[in-house]
Each structure stands twice: as structure tokens, then as C-alpha cells.
């Protein structure tokens, strides 16, 4: 019994870490949805691009600095963040601005195209082989009692918490953050306040790119191999967002984390002890989703109406 408990605890930590990645993707996704009503199907691809770009920087910097060390990871991370900001600005120019007067549906189609293009481009540039990402923490672990915890997982969790705290502060305490919330609920009224909404939308895309890229940077070291398929993890943003309550930012984060925990535990302990769980591993997330929606149709943090009509 003790073993089961240890296993569950261990998987919970690892599940939270995975869930943090989902949470970041769902967060970026919700941010764009709230501000523009656009469902961004390329959020997972933003993460994938982040993972690759970071890998590229690690390789480059380790060449310059003579081997992989702490500084390499730090510089690579900084480089990825700068890249993300530029990438967000670019996306605002190519996706958001040209289509600003078009129906939301056209923009959604554009994000689908973007997703496909990013996947192909990445495959072309990086070549067909899978890469082996390195982790700044190696396989290091530490123990709490008999529970073994990976330092990488803990660092993912801490990064996510820090990031969310920064965003929370920004959206609730700063003039620009509140202006972004105001623009999301009523762009026309926001314009009447003199809020430059074009700039607000640019910020939204930059943030979405930032959380996507950071998600990718954090996720890659957890993967044995890095290939373009990790972008499909981005699709988990949907159940995460729906679970938490579509359009709710805390909902997206909590939904993502719950998803990560459920997935990890069902693939681990539950599959080990119950043969049938193994069979339904792939769909367990969706089962949970349907059950939650049956009890709370608007999700956990559901807001019945996201936008004023």
C-alpha cells in the first residue's frame, strides 16, 4: 500500500510538471481567445518552435562557451525569450493585422495554416531526424522520504508559478494590464478611453508567443527525443481550457494542471494495477472532461458568458 502511495505522490509531482506545460499552452490560447475571439490552433506549434529554437541556441552557445554548462542554458533561455517577443510581433503583423476586419473564422483558418507551415518549416530547417535535448539538471533527483522527485520537474513547476505570478501582477496591478482586460471585454469602449488597441493586440500575441516558447523550452528536456510531433501536445490546450471553463484564465491554468496529473497517474499507477486503465489511457482525459461538463456545463471556473454581446 505504501508503494502505491509513494507512486501516486511521485506521479503527482511529475503530473503537475506536465500539467504546467499544458497550463502555459492553454493560457496563451485563452489570452488570444479572450481578446480577439480567435481560437489559435497554432499554440502547440509555438511551443514546438520554442523547443527547437532553444535547442539551437544551446548548441550554438555551447560551441562558443566550450561545452554545455549553466551559462549556456541561461543565455539560450534569454535568447529564446527575445526570439519569442520578435516572433509575437511578427505574428501580429501577419495574422492579426491583415485580418482585423475579416470574420473571426478567417483568422482561425489562418492559425490552422500557420500551424501547418510552422511544422513543415521546422522539419525542413531542423532536418528529418529527431534531436536529443539536454536537460540543465541532467537526470538529477532528490528524495522526500521515499518519494523521488526530479529536479527538472520542480524547476518546471517553479518557472510556471513565477510566470503566472508575473502575469497575475501585470493583469491586475498595472495600467497596461488592466487596459488589456478592458480591451478584451469591450474594444470599442477601450478605444474611447484612448487605449491604443492595436498595441494591445500586439501585446496579446507577444504574450501568447512567450508562454508558448517558454512552454517548449521547459518541455523539451522532459522528452527523450525532440521532433515536430510535440506540437500535438498543444491540442491538450482544448480539453484543459474547456475543463477549467472556456475563456477563463485561472480555469485554463487549473484545467491544464488537472489534466497533467490525471494523465500521468492513469499511465502510471492506475495502468499498473488495473489492466483496463491501460486500454483507455488515450481517452481518459476526454472521459474526465465529459463527466466534469455533465456536472458543471461551464467547466470548473465557468463563466456563463465570456463576452458582452
Amino acid at each position: 500500500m505504501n508503494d502505491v502511495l509513494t507512486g501516486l505522490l511521485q506521479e503527482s509531482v511529475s503530473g503537475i510538471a506536465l500539467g504546467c506545460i499544458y497550463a502555459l499552452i492553454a493560457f496563451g490560447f485563452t489570452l488570444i481567445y479572450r481578446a480577439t475571439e480567435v481560437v489559435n490552433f497554432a499554440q502547440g506549434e509555438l511551443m514546438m518552435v520554442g523547443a527547437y529554437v532553444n535547442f539551437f541556441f544551446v548548441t550554438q552557445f555551447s560551441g562558443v562557451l566550450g561545452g554545455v554548462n549553466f551559462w549556456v542554458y541561461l543565455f539560450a533561455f534569454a535568447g529564446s525569450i527575445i526570439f519569442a517577443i520578435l516572433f509575437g510581433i511578427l505574428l501580429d503583423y501577419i495574422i492579426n493585422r491583415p485580418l482585423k476586419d475579416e470574420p473571426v473564422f478567417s483568422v482561425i483558418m489562418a492559425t490552422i495554416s500557420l500551424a501547418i507551415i510552422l511544422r513543415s518549416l521546422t522539419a525542413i530547417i531542423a532536418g528529418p531526424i529527431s534531436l536529443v535535448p539536454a536537460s540543465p539538471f541532467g537526470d538529477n533527483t532528490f528524495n522526500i522520504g521515499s518519494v523521488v522527485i526530479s529536479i527538472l520537474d520542480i524547476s518546471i513547476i517553479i518557472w510556471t508559478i513565477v510566470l503566472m505570478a508575473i502575469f497575475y501582477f501585470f493583469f491586475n496591478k498595472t495600467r497596461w494590464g488592466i487596459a488589456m482586460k478592458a480591451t478584451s471585454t469591450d474594444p470599442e469602449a477601450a478605444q474611447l478611453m484612448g487605449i491604443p488597441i492595436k498595441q494591445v493586440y500586439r501585446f496579446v500575441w507577444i504574450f501568447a508567443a512567450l508562454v508558448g516558447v517558454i512552454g517548449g523550452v521547459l518541455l523539451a528536456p522532459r522528452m527523450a527525443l525532440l521532433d515536430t510531433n510535440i506540437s500535438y501536445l498543444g491540442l491538450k490546450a482544448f480539453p484543459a481550457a474547456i475543463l477549467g471553463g472556456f475563456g477563463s484564465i485561472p480555469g485554463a491554468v487549473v484545467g491544464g494542471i488537472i489534466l497533467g496529473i490525471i494523465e500521468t497517474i492513469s499511465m502510471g499507477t492506475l495502468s499498473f494495477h488495473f489492466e483496463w486503465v491501460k486500454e483507455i489511457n488515450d481517452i481518459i482525459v476526454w472521459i474526465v472532461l465529459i463527466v466534469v461538463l455533465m456536472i458543471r456545463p461551464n467547466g470548473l471556473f465557468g463563466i456563463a458568458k465570456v463576452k458582452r454581446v
Partner: protein
Amino acid sequence: MLKMVGVETFYGKIKALHGVSLGVEKGQLVCILGANGAGKTTILKTICGITEPEYGTIHFNDEQIDHKDPEEIIKMGISHVPENRRIFPELTVNENLLMGGFLIKDKDLFAERFEKVTAHFPVLSKRSSQQAGTLSGGEQQMLAIARALMLEPQLLLLDEPSLGLSPKLVQEIFTIIQDLHQAGVTILLVEQNVNQALKIADYGYVLTSGKIFLSGTYDELYEEEKVREMYLGEGKYVRRARLWRS
């Protein structure tokens, strides 16, 4: 101060304004009257750049402002209290005022304006950290006006500020408008409460189907039988309606 000449505004292919010309002098309270769908809101939206005119020109203090972005126009000293208040329901009262003063970069100036505005609307300071969506209709209207006053505009555009309020609150709103007028704020007011609006206005324009149909002072407009009939509750339409009811 404000001069619109031959302005035509479209929503897609639908023409909402058919060559509207009007002027507002400094310190005046000018009122726009018109039936539902006449284009009153469109005039105000066109002035502050939410919708762009296809033809015609708009000048504010001798500077051309058609085709400028709303944020530039607001910066020049025009504030707009939109139809249906349009406060930010999820933000608190204070955050709404913060948004009203979004363009004020200087912290001290902001604090000063904030003091002034909340002193003018004591109801709001009592509810400072309440979500604006939970305010009553009257309080929301006060907030919408207070929010627009944060920038101390030279020209204030008010779109049906008394809409949906009880007679007592309508009275209160009109008192506020008159106070602002007396304090020297230039006001362009759209109203359905025609009688009351015309009484406090220096000048009125009557709009029908996107065209200025008549204009004049209260007395001049009162002379016009059509205006009396349609808006001032003395015409045959009203009498017929009364007959119908009784």
C-alpha cells in the same frame, strides 16, 4: 470648436449619414434629436474616430480629425460617454476610472484628477472596489460620465445618458450635465428626453434618416409644428396615440 461638413458614414454598403453638417461653439451645449436609427450615435462615433467617414470633413479646434485614430482624437480633448454606458463590468469602479485616465502618464496629475472626479461623484467613492457590473443603472451612468471626465475634455460627447433611468435619476443626470455646462465644458448631447434636453441646450439639431432636417434654438424649434408633433408631446400623433389608449 467642432465643425462637421458634409459627412457621410457607411456601415458596409449601408449609408448611415447622408451629408451631415453641424457645428459646436466653445462653451455651448448642443443637442442632437432624432428618432431611433436616425444616425445620432453614428455622428458621435464618427467624431471620435470609431467609424471613419467616407466623405466630408471634421475639424476640431481648426485641426482636421477625420481619419485620425480614436486615441489621437481623445488625446486632443474629446471624450465620449457611449450609448448604454459601456463601463467595463469586470473591472472595479476605481479600475474603470483608471482606464478613463489611461492617457494621463503623470502620477500626480492622475491623483489630482481622480480626487476631483470622485469628489464630484461621492456615490462612486463609496463603491470604489466593487465590480462595476454590479452597480445600479444610475451609478453605472455616473461612472461612465466620471470616467470620461478623467481627461478633463474640452468637448464632451454624451449619447443618451438618461436612457433606462428612473425619472428621479434622469433629473439627477440632467443636473450633472447642466453643472458641467456651467463649469465651461462644451457638450454635444444626444437625447430622447427631448423636452428636457432642449430646455438646457443652447442649440439643437433634428436628424431624420441620416440628414439634418432642422436646427435652431429651443424657441425656434418650438415654432416648428413638426418638431412639436414628433418630439415635444403636443402633436396630432401623440393625441391620436392618447385617443387610442383611452
